Structures are given as C-alpha cells and as structure tokens.
C-alpha cells in the first residue's frame, strides 16, 4: 500500500499544483454530473410527488418499473443511448455522440429513476397533514408542493447525495457515449478504467481517492450546513 500512498500523494500534489490535465478530468466529472443532477431534479421530484399522492391506473406498475430500472447496469443505458445517438441511429444527425452533452443525457437517465424512487419514499413517509395544513392556510398547489419539499428536505438531501454518488461514480454510460477522449470527454471514472486496463492499479485507486476527496469536501460542506440548521426532533 506504500505504492498507493505515493501515487495518491502524487495525484493530490498534481491537483494542488494545478496540473491542467488532472483538473480538466476532474472538471469534466463534476460539471457533467452536476448538470445531469440539476436537470433531472425537478422533473424527478414532481414524478415522485405524483406517484406518492395520486392514485391512477398503472401507478403500481410504474413504481415497480422504476425500482427495476435501478437494476439496469449503467453500460446498458449507455448502449441504448449510443444506439440512438450513433450516426446509424435515429438521432445521429444531432452529432452528440462522444460529447459531454451526450454524457449528461446518459447520467440524467441514470439518476432520474433513483431520484423518483427516493423522493417517492420521502413523500410517502411525510405526514399527510403537511399538504392539508398548507392548503387550508391558502397555499396554491405549487406552494403546497414547495412546503412539502421543505418539510422532507433531509430525506431529499439524502436522495440528491445518493443520486450524485451514482452518476459521478458510474463509468458504463460515460465510456459508451463519451468515448473517453482526452481533453474532451475523459472524466475520472473513464480515466480510472483506462489506467486499470493498463495494469496501473495504483494509479486507478489514486484517481478514485481524488474523487473521494472531492466528494468529501462537497459532503462536509453540506453536512456543515445541515448540522447548523437542525435540532433533533422531540415528541411530547
């Protein structure tokens, strides 16, 4: 593991010294995943809300399908998207293959079912009186929805963190529709795959730790915000 430590400290030193290549790779990872998450968030929350509060035929099938989609490997999502975006595919003219927007689309597809499933569970656990109270105090449907989001904000935060973890750590779709092109679509995970393929395991782990450290920084800031806005709930 001494090996690992050296490589890791080299990787971090490279980061700190502003090595443009490494920062570029880190930048691709974070910008792609953050974009995907931001785009998917609101539609996913609305879908979760709809599934939680409205009974309609097919609702139950939709929930089962949703949960099952979580079991679809990221590379399969990538493959399907590849087939769509390929020159030979129906959307080939958009010229999106092997670009970051294609990676973003892939990750949107990946985090959407997770966000829906987790927000659905958050909304289901919420007290039914939240919406009733909001409505009776004059909130519009949209305002009532926002109130509900606020009341279950900790569960939603957990959903966002999990979804972000899923997409920033995924490699299948990024590799398939991004292509791991240096300076363009190479992100941390495809770089790890590359290094690993070369037998450079230590390099791979070091890159993984770089990702972990970046995520840690993000989470510590989030956690700090949370712990400074939260007191434990009691019941009398």
């Amino acid at each position, binding site marked *: 593991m001494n090996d690992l430590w050296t490589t890791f400290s080299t990787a971090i030193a490279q980061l700190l010294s502003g090595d443009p290549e490494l920062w570029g790779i880190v930048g691709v990872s974070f910008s792609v995943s953050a974009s995907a998450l931001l785009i998917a968030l609101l539609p996913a929350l609305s879908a979760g809300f709809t599934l939680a509060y409205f009974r309609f035929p097919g609702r139950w099938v939709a929930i089962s399908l949703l949960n099952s989609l979580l079991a679809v490997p990221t590379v399969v999502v990538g493959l399907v998207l590849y087939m769509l975006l390929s020159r030979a595919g129906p959307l080939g003219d958009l010229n999106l293959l092997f670009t970051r927007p294609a990676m973003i689309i892939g990750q949107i597809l990946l985090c959407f079912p997770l966000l829906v499933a987790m927000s659905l569970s958050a909304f289901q656990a919420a*007290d039914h*009186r*939240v919406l*009733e*109270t*909001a*409505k*009776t*105090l*004059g*909130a*519009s449907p949209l*305002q009532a929805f926002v*109130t509900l989001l*606020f*009341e279950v904000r900790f569960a939603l935060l957990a959903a966002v963190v999990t979804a972000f973890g899923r997409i920033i750590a995924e490699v299948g779709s990024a590799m398939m529709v991004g292509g791991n092109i240096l300076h363009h679509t190479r992100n941390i995970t495809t770089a790890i795959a590359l290094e690993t393929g070369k037998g450079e395991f230590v390099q791979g782990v070091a890159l993984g730790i770089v990702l972990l450290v970046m995520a840690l920084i993000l989470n510590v800031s989030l956690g700090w915000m949370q712990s400074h806005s939260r*007191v434990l*709930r*009691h019941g*009398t």
Partner: protein
Amino acid sequence: MRLELNNICQRYGEEDLFVIDQLQLISTDAVHLHGPNGVGKSTLMKIMAGLQKPTSGEVRRMPMAGENMRRQAVIYLHQNTYLFDTDVRSNVEYGLRMRREKNTKKVDKALAWAGLGHLEYRQAHLLSGGERQRLALARALVLDPALVLLDEPTSNLDIGSVARIEEMLQDLHRRGTGILLACHQDNALTKLCNQHWLLAAGKLTVQA
C-alpha cells in the same frame, strides 16, 4: 361567505358514517359541534373545508353581498395540529407569505395574543402541547378567515389560554368570521356559540 352542503354522504367500506341532506354555515354563525367520539365530526369539518371529498354530495362556497373576497375563505384547524419544521414566527407568517403579504405588525400581534412572543424564534417542534395548540390558532387567525373550523382547539390549553382564545374569537366573530367549533367540553368558548349542532348516529341535528 356561505358554505352550503347538499346531500352529503360519507361512507367507509360498507357503512355510512353520516348522511346530511342540507346544511349551511355563514359568516355570522358561531356553532358548537358536538357528538360522541368517532361519530365523524372531524371528517365533516374536513369535508366542509374542502380537504376531503365526501363519498357523495356537494359542498358549495358562495360569497355574500358586499363581502371582501381577498380573505382566505375557509380554514380548518386539525384536531392534532401539524406545525411546519421551522420556528414559531415563520409558522405564523406562513399563510401571509403564501399570499405574498408582508405584515410584521399583524404577525407580532398574533404572537403576542397567543402568548408566544417570547418564543418567536424557538423551533416549533420543541413546543409544549398547549403552546402548539396556541401557535396553530395564531397561524390560522392571523389570516382573518371568512370561516374557521376549529377541531378541539382547547384540548391542551390551560384555563388562562382558553379565556384568551375566547376573547380573540369573539373579536374575530364580531368582525365577521363564522366559527364552527368541535369541542367535547363546555367552556368559555362553547358559551360564545349561538348554535349547537349534534352529530350522533349518522345524523346531524341542529339544536336551539
């Protein structure tokens, strides 16, 4: 504001909970609704407030001549109050914020009136049973509703608080808010009422 119920029937499973042919509540009413546990008082009030659809029948809201329609129409106060996960003050502000009204004075007044002025920045979930109850009342009454449906609002209140609330409701009522009060005890509040409704065995009887 006039609330009209026509041919309301509420049924759970096989059984009718209650059947009410005709009922109305207007802004000048102050009604005490009583009846044994589980007879459907809360259900009826939620139906009247539009929070629950009855199995059949219709609920209509009609303005009365010369009424100011900006007022929040009908507010239902849960028997078991839900407080938003913020502090006391922003709970009171909630309804005003929803209608984009900023009125510090109104909020201050409501807080003072509910005896919560010294707790305005306490997290709502820390409050005691009576404090919760008073906060919920303040949060509703600050909106100056046309009709307010209170479900056991005094259940956790000490005698002083009951008296205070009675005063406040009296004041609101004088200024044109209709009141429907479900309450098992007889106290200052129920004495304020000029009508008594008895819900029992699936039927509503309007008493003197």
